[in-house]
């Protein structure tokens, strides 16, 4: 059994059908979990499997909500993804577990409007000071308003 399958099997043993979607590529494992076991799975990976390194957290707006995906691990990379609602997106913060997550969560907060509960310092980070509240540039709706393809003539 390959390393990837091995990890997936162990995860499934620990969490059963909480892992309701998974995908394997070379050196990559993607698992999808419900929002309430998101931090549990990460906790398990960090504490029991020693995957202390958080690559980053990706936020994507998908059809039925916003997907948060934490990428863990140095060699083998396990991505734990979960989908949350679009209207009032809320997710648990993993900063207490991995302090390095702070900046990634702040970035997602700004660009996608996700509120991370119990985050120590959810202040403005990447966007300019005069950026209007409640406008999230990585949302799909933002594109239609502000980011029409620019093909104007030469000035």
């Amino acid at each position: 059994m390959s390393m990837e399958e091995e990890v997936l099997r162990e995860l499934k043993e620990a969490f059963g059908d909480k892992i309701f979607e998974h995908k394997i590529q070379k050196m990559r494992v993607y698992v999808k979990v419900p929002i309430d076991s998101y931090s549990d799975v990460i906790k398990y990976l960090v504490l029991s499997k020693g995957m202390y390194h958080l690559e980053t957290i990706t936020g994507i707006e998908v059809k039925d909500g916003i997907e948060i995906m934490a990428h863990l691990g140095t060699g083998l990379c396990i991505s734990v993804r979960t989908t949350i609602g679009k209207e009032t997106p809320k997710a648990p913060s993993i900063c207490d577990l991995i302090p390095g997550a702070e900046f990634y969560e702040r970035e997602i907060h700004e660009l996608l409007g996700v509120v991370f509960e119990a985050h120590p310092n959810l202040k403005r980070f990447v966007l300019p000071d005069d950026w209007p509240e409640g406008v999230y540039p990585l949302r799909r709706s933002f594109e239609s308003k502000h980011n029409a393809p620019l093909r104007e003539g030469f000035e």
Partner: protein
Amino acid sequence: MGLVSWARSKSPWIAHFCTGSCNACDIEILACLTPRYDIERFGAVLKGSIRHADILLVTGPVTRQVRDRLLRIYEQMPEPKYVVAVGTCATSSGVYRGAYNVYPGVDSVIPVTAYISGCPVKPENIINGLSFLLKKIGESK
């Protein structure tokens, strides 16, 4: 060529401001100071304080956040002052054109005297642009 414009054309003190560039042009400007290029030949010195500078080299498209600071820095420069847009993205925002957080080039914020094109600019081209500008300054009354 008066004494004053002679002095001005021989003693360009440079300040460098990065308004969101990718760094490549910044390091090429820095490379201009180093032995191979050595713009001190023209009397140019890189100055930290904007109050001491005559020529402002701007790299990068102007991001929203930097815009006000760029204006402020420009206002703090003592006259006569010249702004040189270094690199394509300072000239016209280049590859970042259309991004939600950038303005289309430095000249949409402050007046620009000369444009040096390249992505990144070859250090020789910076020297070329600078010496061209200096010649112009020297020729003005």
